[in-house]
């Protein structure tokens, strides 16, 4: 897009024929809308876009380009919300070329300017596509985080004893969430014992063992002692064959065993009711 002439001339042309072009543009956009939005809504939305495009082309001020980008991102988002595919949104932007071409073709005067303008509109249309893509990625990432949060409960087993039942793989992302929740709960409940149950963790290899070790280390910095429970027979064999050492961390077969150990350490005893 050259800095001076063609852009400014096109901007002036667009200003002169504003109403006609916006009208035709809105029509073209509406023809692909299939009732998902109204003509008034479209005229307003695309009218604003039009003004920004004109401002950017005329290099009137340095904020125009940034505002135009923001407006396109917003258009992409709102259309996606209303159920438009990214292709439909992009085509909507591209149809501005058609609307302008219909006028320009009558006089055949603005050919070089139109060529440059056409390239600019191509970029803008593609931008709405990219914005849609980025928005989807963000949604996926947010959902993944939400799932991580939900799948990491920390429960109070007894006064001063909390349990973290882990279900699913323990990767580094999950470990971060587990550590945060465990430690926050330790602070909130004043517990001094945590049982980390790994019955639901399918494989325990050296990486998982390291994650467990990290979690226990962090909990100990807050003065809590940890027991790892839920060691299944196959897991026990894998751990030994891999040479993994849990050092001074107590490990138990079941959550019940771990609870009994924790109660003992807390100086408590469970006796039959009279």
């Amino acid at each position, binding site marked *: 897009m050259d800095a001076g002439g063609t852009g400014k001339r096109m901007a002036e042309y667009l200003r002169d024929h504003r109403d006609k072009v916006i009208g035709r543009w809105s029509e073209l956009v509406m023809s692909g809308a299939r009732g998902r939005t109204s003509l008034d809504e479209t005229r307003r939305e695309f009218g604003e876009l039009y003004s920004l495009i004109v401002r950017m082309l005329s290099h009137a001020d340095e904020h125009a380009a940034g505002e135009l980008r923001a407006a396109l991102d917003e258009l992409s988002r709102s259309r996606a919300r209303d159920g438009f595919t990214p292709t439909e949104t992009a085509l909507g932007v591209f149809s501005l070329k058609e609307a302008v071409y219909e006028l320009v073709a009558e006089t055949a005067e603005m050919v070089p300017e139109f060529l440059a303008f056409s390239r600019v509109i191509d970029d803008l249309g593609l931008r709405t596509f990219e914005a849609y893509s980025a928005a989807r990625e963000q949604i996926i990432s947010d959902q993944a985080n939400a799932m991580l949060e939900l799948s990491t409960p920390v429960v109070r087993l007894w006064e001063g004893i909390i349990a973290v039942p882990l279900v699913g793989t323990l990767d580094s992302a999950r470990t*971060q969430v587990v*550590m*945060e929740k465990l*430690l*926050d709960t*330790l*602070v909130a409940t*004043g517990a*001094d014992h945590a049982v980390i149950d790994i019955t639901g963790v399918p494989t325990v290899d050296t990486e998982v063992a390291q994650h467990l070790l*990290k979690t226990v*280390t*962090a*909990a*100990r*910095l*807050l*003065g*809590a002692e940890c027991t790892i429970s839920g060691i299944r027979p196959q897991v026990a064999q894998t751990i030994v064959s891999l040479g993994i050492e849990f050092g001074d961390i107590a490990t138990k077969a079941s959550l019940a065993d771990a609870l009994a150990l924790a109660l003992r350490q807390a100086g408590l005893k469970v006796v039959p009711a009279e």
Partner: protein
Amino acid sequence: MERVPILKIGQTLFVSIQIDLQDDTVLRLQEDLADELAATTARGVIIDITAVEIVDSFIGRMLSMIGSISRLFDAETVIVGMRPAVAITLTELGLPLSGVRTALNAEKGLEILNGKS
């Protein structure tokens, strides 16, 4: 340079760190604690880091050293009130923080010290 005050209550020295720790401040604290331990019959040290937002390897090392120094005077050191974010970071950093016990708060720290003696 700010100095971290040391309180003596019974046989325990209490240190509550409330400021953004500068290297000099930590070194000074170490010296002051050594002086106090040598001069008094204190059997325990409680360092409250509830207000400390950052513990890097230098500060961590200093805390460990304080633990070692106190043991030379037959005293035990307990670090209390570590923030979850700090604990997670220290673990990631790989800092063993050896030589000191840790507890959730000063009350539990005292229980540990009293249990010891």
